[in-house]
C-alpha cells in the first residue's frame, strides 16, 4: 500500500513558481504492479522522485508499509568517475551490507550485467546499454517491496531484455513494480493498474485499457 496524502510539490523557475501537484491524494493498493503514465511534463518523474525520497514534498506526506527502491533509471545513482564495481560497493555500504554479503551482491551483479572487464572500468566509459545492465542488475541484487523503474526496461539488446524480464518476473512474485514508461505494450504486459497523470491530477484506473485510453485521449502518443 502506498498512500499520498495531500501532496503538494512546486519548483522555483526563473519565471516564478511552477506547481506540479497541489493537494494530490491517492491510494495505491498493495500487491499491485502500477504503471505511471502521462505526457511529458505531467509530473511522472517528479512523483518518482517523491516516492523514492530523492525530493521532499512542500506539504503533505507519503505513507507506505513497504520498502521502496531507489529510482532505477539510466542516469543517477552511478558515479561516472568510479568503476562499476566501486559503484555497487557504494550501494552495498549505504544499505549496511558488508563482508560476505557484499561479495555475494558483487558476484550477482557481475554475473547479471555481463560487463566483462568493463566492470572494473569507470562507468563514464560505458555505453547506455551497459549502464542499463549495471543499474538494473544492481537493483535486482537487493530485496524491495516496490521497484521504482523509470523507462529502463526498454534499453539493451534483445538478449538482455529477455533475461531481465525473466529475472524481474521472478522478483515480482514477492515484490511489485512502479513503472514509468511511454511504451504501452510494456504497461499492458507488466501492470495490474495504471495511474494517469494529467495537469496536476492523478487518476487511478484498475482497468489498464481504460487508463491507456485516457492517456491517449489526453494527447499521449499511442
Amino acid at each position, binding site marked *: 500500500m502506498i498512500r499520498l496524502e495531500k501532496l503538494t510539490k512546486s519548483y522555483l523557475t526563473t519565471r516564478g513558481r511552477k506547481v506540479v501537484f497541489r493537494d494530490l491524494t491517492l491510494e495505491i493498493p498493495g500487491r499491485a504492479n502500477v504503471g505511471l503514465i502521462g505526457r511529458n511534463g505531467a509530473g511522472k518523474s517528479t512523483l518518482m522522485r517523491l516516492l523514492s525520497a530523492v525530493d521532499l514534498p512542500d506539504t503533505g506526506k507519503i505513507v507506505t508499509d513497504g520498502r521502496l527502491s*531507489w529510482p532505477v533509471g539510466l542516469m543517477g545513482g552511478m*558515479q561516472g*568517475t*568510479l568503476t562499476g564495481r566501486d559503484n555497487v560497493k*557504494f550501494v552495498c*555500504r549505504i544499505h549496511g551490507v558488508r563482508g560476505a*554479503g557484499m561479495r555475494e551482491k558483487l558476484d550477482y551483479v557481475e554475473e547479471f550485467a555481463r560487463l566483462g572487464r568493463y566492470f572494473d572500468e569507470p562507468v563514464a566509459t560505458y555505453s547506455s546499454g551497459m549502464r542499463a545492465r549495471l543499474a538494473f542488475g544492481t537493483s535486482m541484487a537487493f*530485496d524491495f517491496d516496490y521497484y521504482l523503474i523509470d523507462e529502463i526496461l526498454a534499453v539493451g539488446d534483445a538478449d538482455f531484455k529477455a533475461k531481465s524480464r525473466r529475472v524481474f518476473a521472478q522478483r515480482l512474485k514477492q515484490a511489485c513494480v512502479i513503472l514509468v514508461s511511454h511504451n504501452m505494450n510494456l504497461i499492458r504486459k507488466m501492470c495490474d493498474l495504471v495511474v494517469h497523470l494529467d495537469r496536476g491530477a492523478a487518476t487511478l484506473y484498475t482497468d489498464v485499457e481504460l487508463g491507456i485510453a485516457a492517456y491517449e485521449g489526453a494527447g499521449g502518443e499511442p
Partner: protein
Amino acid sequence: MITGARTSFQIQRDVVYALLLRELASRFGKSRVGFLWVLMEPVAHLVFPIAVFGFMLERTIPGVEYPVFLTYGFLPFLLFKTICLQTMDGTRANRGLLSYRQVLLMDVFVAKALTHCAVSASVFAVVLGGLALVGFDVLPPSPIELFGVLALTVALAFGLGMLFAALGTVSPELKSIARLIFIPLYFLSGILFPISRFPEDWLPWLAINPVLHLVELSRHAALPDYELVPELGAGNPLALAIASVFMGLALYRLRWLSRAAA
C-alpha cells in the same frame, strides 16, 4: 532494512563511511598524480614565500624561524579555504548519489569535511616532517591548544561553507564572488608577514577577519614565545563559528541548500 533494521544513527554512519571511501577513491584512485598534487600544492605555496621573504624577515620576528612561522599560518588558512569551498560546492557535486534515500545532503557535507580533515592531517605531517628533517624545530609547545584552534577552523569553514551554499541557490554568481574573497583574504590574514608589520591603526579593522585570529592563534599555540596582539583572541572566530553553523543548519532545515539554483 536489508540486514535487519538499522537505527538512524547507524544508517548515517554507514552512509558517511561509504561516501568517505568514495571520495577518497575518486580523488586518489584515478592516478598517483592526484595524490602527489594534494601534497605538492601546499608545499608549492610555502616554498615561494620562503625563498623570497625568508632572508628579509630572518631577523624581524625574534626567536621564530620564518619557514615554521609561515607553515603554521598557511596550513590553517588552506584548511579553512578548502573545507569552506568544498562544503559550498557540495550541493552540486554528488547529485547522483542523492537518488538513494539513505544519502542526505548533510552526509555529503560531513563526508567531504572529514575527508579533507584526514588529507590535511597528512599534509601537516609531511610538511612538518620535512621541515624537521632539514633541522627546524617544529614541535608545538601546546599541541592541545593547536588542535583546538584547528577544530575551530574546521567548524567556522563548515558553517560559512553552508551559508555560501545557501547563497549559491539564490544565484550561482554569488559562489564565484565567495571564491574571489579568498584572494584578498590570503593577504589580510597575516600569512606572509607578522601582523605587527601592518600599521597599528589598521589593527581594529584587520581584526574583523576571523581567519586572521585563527592564523595567529595557531602560531601562538605552535611557536614558543609567540605573543598575540591584544586585539586578537578566540572570541571572534568562536562567535562566528557558532553563529554560522547555527544559521547554516537552520537554512538546511528550511531546505535552502537542497533547492536548485534558479
